[in-house]
């Protein structure tokens, strides 16, 4: 049975794909966007749900180019069922999952498993990213052509940068023919040498081994050179340093086919967060494993460069790098704790801070979460990241001014590992719509949802 039509009325429509930025109505029928236009001008069918979106932003469903759903293999950290529900709560209707599962997504069967599980147990679209090399060992290429046919939207050995420049070069040659991006977690493991956090004054104070910024920049520079050589599409994952931004800027000026992403945490937190410092407070010294992430949290100057990069278009996309872990993975010595932040459910609140502070405008933010990642994914899965009539109705509604306090206990994700615990955010997802169905609605906004049988004729 087809779900009734849905009218989203009076919201602030933001759709960078059509240049939309104003108050209007949106009509959804049969799972697709049926109509978009000025408030009150829609001619709705008799039976419908309405959402009174006054004061809310209505935009295409967010697309996360980089997350870890952990299934198969690490179901104690996250499953496709919980991860996609966490995504919905965060306003994401499409998530691209990284292949560092067990078994890794380096073969047809694993990709197939993820896709089938997502269809039966997931609530949002799950697009797999396949491994560059078999078992992410950096030695032999995967059957990239077949994996592309299976639906991989790109290739990455995430977490394990391909150390061999020769293998990386071959991967780019091969992927170039498939027109899919190579997505690299840029890290020279040799230079990082088991480091635990950014190399700097905090690592010195805490007596923790540091990861120099150059460990990232060396591989960014290498990959850019290889992208230029091969003509392949390159996507740099979670850029964290000022110099990486500059390298990518220069490469784009030269016309190299590179795109880049930054994460909400790298855009807002500094290395001081590791020792428990929060803005405005000088708390007791701690070793906060929830702030342990790779690449590590850097400095104010790096944050400024990343934000400038977003505004200039050097950084195309904001991706969460959602990396859920169990309590056991994190409640241990800093050096033994797992790297990663559970980020799907805090992304919007965190990023809206940048909008409220005037560092990023709302349309740019929405673009980095919708249109830009959609461009990188391409149209293999239909048109994503748009409110254009005829396209699948994947929509996020959020209240840009709603204040809320982060509590990991309320996370749907199994990963409660957040450095934002107790933070007050301004900006909250109200509802997430996937293919016309409301797959998430926030408890504290029940009054905006109505079901009416208006103008019913006898």
């Amino acid at each position, binding site marked *: 049975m087809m779900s009734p039509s849905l009218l989203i009325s009076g919201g602030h429509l933001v759709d960078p794909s059509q240049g939309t930025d104003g108050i209007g109505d949106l009509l959804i029928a049969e799972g697709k966007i049926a109509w978009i236009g000025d408030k009150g001008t829609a001619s709705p069918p008799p039976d419908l749900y309405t959402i009174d979106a006054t004061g809310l932003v209505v935009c295409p469903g967010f697309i996360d180019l980089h997350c870890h759903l952990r299934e198969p293999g690490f179901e104690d950290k996250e499953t496709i069922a919980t991860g996609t529900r966490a995504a919905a709560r965060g306003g994401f209707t499409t998530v691209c999952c990284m292949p560092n599962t067990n078994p890794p997504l380096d073969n047809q069967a694993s990709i197939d498993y993820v896709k089938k599980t997502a269809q039966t147990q997931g609530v949002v679209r799950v697009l797999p990213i396949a491994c560059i090399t078999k078992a992410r060992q950096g030695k032999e290429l995967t059957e990239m052509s077949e994996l592309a046919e299976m639906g991989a939207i790109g290739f990455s050995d995430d977490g394990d940068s391909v150390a061999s420049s020769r293998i990386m070069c071959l991967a780019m040659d091969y992927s170039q023919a498939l027109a899919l991006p190579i997505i690299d977690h840029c890290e020279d493991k040799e230079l990082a040498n088991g480091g635990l956090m950014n*190399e*700097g*004054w*905090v*690592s*010195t*104070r*805490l*007596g*923790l*081994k*540091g990861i*120099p910024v150059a460990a990232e920049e060396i591989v960014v520079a290498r990959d850019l050179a290889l992208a230029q050589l091969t003509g392949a599409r390159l996507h740099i994952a979670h850029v964290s340093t000022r110099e990486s931004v500059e390298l990518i800027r220069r490469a784009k000026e030269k016309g190299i086919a590179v795109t880049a992403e930054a994460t909400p945490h790298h855009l807002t937190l500094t290395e001081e967060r590791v020792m428990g410092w929060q803005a405005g407070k000088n708390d007791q*010294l*701690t*070793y906060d494993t929830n702030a342990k992430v790779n690449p590590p949290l850097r400095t104010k100057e790096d944050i400024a460069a990343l934000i400038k990069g977003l505004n200039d278009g050097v950084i195309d996309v904001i991706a969460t790098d959602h990396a859920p872990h169990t309590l*056991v993975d994190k*409640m*241990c*010595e*800093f*050096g*033994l704790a797992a790297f990663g932040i559970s980020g799907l459910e805090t992304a919007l609140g965190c990023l809206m801070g940048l909008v409220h502070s005037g560092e990023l405008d709302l349309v740019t933010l929405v673009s980095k979460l919708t249109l830009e990642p959609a461009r990188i994914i391409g149209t293999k899965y239909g048109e994503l990241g748009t409110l254009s009539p005829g396209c699948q109705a994947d929509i996020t509604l959020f209240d840009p001014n709603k204040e809320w306090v982060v509590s990991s206990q309320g996370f749907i994700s199994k990963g409660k590992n957040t450095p934002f615990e107790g933070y007050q955010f301004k900006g909250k997802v109200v509802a997430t719509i996937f293919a016309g169905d409301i797959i998430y609605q926030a408890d504290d906004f029940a009054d905006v949802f109505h079901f009416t049988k208006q103008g019913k004729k006898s």
Partner: protein
Amino acid sequence: MKVTESGPGTTIPEAFPPPLMDVWQHRHILDLDDFTKEEIELVFEIADAMTEVLTREVKRVPTLRGKTVVTLFDEPSTRTRASFELAAKNLSADTVSLDASKSSVVKGESLVDSLRTIQALGADVIVMRHSQSGAPYLAAQHLNTNIINGGDGWHAHPSQALLDLYTIRRHLGDLTDLKVTIVGDIMHSRVARSNIWGMTTMGAQVMLCAPPTLFPRGLAGFISRCRLPNVRVESRIEFALEGADVVMMLRLQRERQQSGLLPSLREYIQRYQLTLERLSLAKPYALVLHPGPVNEGIEIGPEVAHGAQSVIEEQVANGVAIRMALLYLIAGGKNK
């Protein structure tokens, strides 16, 4: 301090008043970064009384009778562990000595669970040595038992720094404006880090000296961000030693050379070993300290290690008094 006299010149530490809580603010001893000058002086004052106890024929007072002190060490240690255990025994505490490298930690139990078990067994104080920086902070976060950091990774070794300060004070008095030169593997040294806090709090000038590969890269930022104008950095030992009142040599682990941080031990010995000739660049009465264990012939020449200016053995003896003072301050006040 007020002490009860039981005879001429004899103090009875069991009748110590409870620690002066208006001065003493610590439930745990994790590092010296949050110690005030007054607190450090209080430790010294009590250590003086404990030193007196150590001169007696029966070096034992009942101050911590009925208390249990557990030492949990996951790294080999002779002096720190023995020193804490003797300190606890001298105060009549019961001691339990656990080797983390052979215990439940190896069986897959998490550190927090192991510590909770020790707490449940009735430990009043846990002295822990851990190879991971920050491990005692994790313990302090999850336990009610008092924690003393017996050295964590590269981070801190507060009881060592206190005994270093105490040893210097006993020879040179007030530490204000003394020039203390610390030479060696600064990057990996918890002793150096804790001493930076302790020395600067007491008003001393600290000169750090190491080969460029054994300084942490963030050191300059650390000095400026933590507002430590009295800390300076110098790679050439001859300049670093000039006019020093105290020279503290750090142990050089041979693994450092194997991991490529040093071209050769030979070059380290040539450039950085404290010889009599180099020591002559310091003040004539300069003290020579070393936290041990000493690699004689590597970071320090035998003629210096055993020379007239060396107080290395005295450091060890003072370590017992300092640790008695710390145990008393942490555990002695509760049942009074």
